[in-house]
């Protein structure tokens, strides 16, 4: 029981990341009908937004502290971040400490701008082209974005810690009446899960309860008719692309403390997210979210020693096995709609 619960929890954070990326992919696919291979790169750019903000906040100037000396007898140089000098040490320190959550606010405008430029500058020209061309051009774009990030930030992962308040882990088991120290779960992962749930809820209610969302949903169902009614659906779809980019971006920002950002993290997540989208059903938003969590949890269960001893290596390939089985038995995916990407 304890192990099952533990694996369930472990699967949640990875599943949340899959769900968030897959949600964005599906949004783009459902609205614009474009297969976006550069979506993983957006996730990565989000993570690097967190890195950038934390670097910016850590910008410091050096002063010489005459009262102290280092071990060579020279006066000690003290680095003081500008923010601490400007806003006072306490508030400044808090700002630096909370750089990752703050980066969410920082990243949203950036990501929307990036998404907007991508859609207007490149992807717009590929609506009428075959899906193979869309895959190929976004694949090229992903390589370019990856290399640009590599130039600015280097090839090594950059660790970006979570705020001190969330650094530890808490004893989940003791709370539910199990023995202590069996089910231990880092705070930040729980926060990630909560955050993902919040974002997913926000996206769904935006689509469900606003007029804008209603128009977008109508456009997803029948683009032509909506256009005939005199609504500029293209502009709304462009905004949805920006929104999808922002979702991928904030998913990346919050993931930075879990996995130190490196330039190829986007590609690693992209392959899995595509599998998630296909399992959930192309064009189905609930399907993408459900499949994201499902595969994340399955992956974490497969990495249990008890299961690995029965089928060795299953933890490495479970996601692909599930995808193959689902595609062959339920060709439209778990919740795929009829007529979407049938051919």
């Amino acid at each position, binding site marked *: 029981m304890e192990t099952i619960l533990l694996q369930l929890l472990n699967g949640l954070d990875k599943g949340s990341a899959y769900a968030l990326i897959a949600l964005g992919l599906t949004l783009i696919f459902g609205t614009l009908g474009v*297969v976006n291979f550069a979506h993983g790169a957006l996730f990565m750019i989000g993570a690097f937004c967190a890195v950038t903000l934390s670097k910016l906040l850590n910008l410091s100037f050096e002063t010489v502290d005459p009262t102290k000396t280092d071990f060579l007898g020279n006066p000690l140089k003290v680095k003081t971040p500008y923010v601490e000098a400007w806003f006072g040490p306490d508030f400044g320190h808090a700002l630096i400490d909370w750089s990752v959550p703050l980066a969410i606010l920082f990243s949203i405008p950036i990501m929307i701008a990036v998404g907007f430029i991508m859609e207007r500058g*490149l992807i717009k*020209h590929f609506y009428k*082209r075959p*899906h*193979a*061309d869309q*895959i*190929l*051009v976004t*694949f*090229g*774009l*992903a*390589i*370019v974005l*990856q*290399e*640009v990030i590599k*130039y600015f930030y280097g090839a090594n992962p950059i660790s970006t810690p979570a705020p001190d308040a969330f650094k530890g882990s808490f004893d989940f088991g003791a709370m539910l009446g199990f023995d202590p120290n069996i089910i231990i779960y880092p705070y930040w992962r729980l926060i990630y899960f909560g955050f993902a749930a919040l974002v997913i809820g926000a996206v769904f209610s935006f689509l469900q309860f606003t007029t804008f969302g209603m128009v977008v949903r109508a456009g997803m169902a029948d683009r032509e008719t909506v256009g005939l009614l005199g609504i500029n659906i293209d502009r709304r779809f462009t905004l949805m692309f920006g929104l999808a980019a922002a979702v991928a971006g904030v998913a990346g920002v919050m993931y930075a403390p879990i996995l130190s950002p490196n330039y190829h993290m986007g*590609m690693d997540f992209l*392959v899995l997210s*595509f*599998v998630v989208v*296909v399992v959930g059903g*192309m064009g189905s938003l609930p399907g993408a979210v459900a499949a994201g969590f499902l595969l994340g949890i399955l992956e974490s269960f497969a990495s249990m020693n008890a299961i690995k001893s029965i089928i*060795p*290596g299953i933890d*490495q*390939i479970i996601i*692909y*096995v599930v*995808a*193959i089985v689902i*595609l*062959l038995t339920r*060709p439209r995916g778990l919740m795929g709609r009829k007529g979407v*990407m049938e*051919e």
Partner: protein
Amino acid sequence: MKKNLLGLNPKDTKFLLIVVLLTLFTPILLQPFAAGSELAQFNGGYPDLMQKIAIFGIFAVGFNILFGLTGYLSFGHAAFLGIGSYAAVWMFKLLTMNVIPGIILAMVVSGLFAAAIGYVSLRRSGIYFSILTLAFAQMCYKMAYSVLTPLTNGETGLQLTLNDPRILDGAREGSSLPVTNIFGLAMNSSYKVEALGRVFTFNVGFYFCAVIAILAFYVAIRLFRSPFGMMLRAVKSNQQRMTYTGLDPKPYTLAAFVISGMYAGLAGGLLAAMDPLAGADRMLWTASGEVVIMTILGGAGTLMGPVLGAGVIKYLENIFSKINEGVLHDWFSFLPDGVEDVVIWVFARFTGEGWHLTLGVTFMLVVTFLPGGLIEGLKRLGSRIRNGSQKRDKYDNPDPEHRPDPGKHVV
């Protein structure tokens, strides 16, 4: 239609002859600049690069049989390349260092894998097919790293060791590893000829690859011109209509998948024959992406395109990676200082370490502006020069590869 002994019409025979000549004289053609001259760094006539061009040419030609003819975009073709490499290295370890059995086994094993993977993946088409092949390739890659370590030697990669059995080779003296050979002729031996101030290297391994590449290319021509190739084009243009005429597209597509998998296995076996080492990296999905890039860059669906694409990419990869800031300084030293720094900064982003950036940018430009690849670009250029007119409607210049004349096959 008049055909000669090889079963080709006169036009194709000429085409094949040109390819044969180009391939056989590669060591000379890729060495146009005198040794020690300023431009010597653009020479590509060293064995390693030439072998790679030939091998990846085979890989891309095979990929093109699937993607160019049937339109099925496989994103997992590198898996077959890796499987071929592993199979060949095992043959070198167990049986003999002669490359022939290794390459045959590589083709057989990757063909079997292709049959199994293709049978499952081809039940879906379009984007689903791409993702299924991607999933299978990633599975192979992950398994090579984890469970199959006894077979693949995990992260280290499969290598030769001194105490491998090598049944046919007999006992070996000395403590050095044996080299791959073909009936006693070592793959890594080369003959250097100095002429006209240039050093030409004629390498056994390259010529072995070249001969196989020519054979592979010949098979591809025959396949393109055959009724079977016609069926594959039918799969691409309209599967539904094909079914209505009473033909089942599936066996044809599966056959194409297996053939292109075997081409990939052959390329993998050759890679192992040139350097007896196999690692899981060869199966990574970026490697699959690379062959897609080569094919598209050259021109999918054309005969010559994939070879051209493979050559261009491998050549540029080698040359670009070598250019560093020092070289750039030499080139642009004639510019005023401030301008020079800017120009060098820009170029340095695309050369040396930045090769992948160049690759990505080129790829995007080609897909966006030249979907037919370099071959189409050359054709457009050619027709513009010939006609000298402004009218460049693509239907004025019917492309025999994309719009085959149906009359030929209706006999």
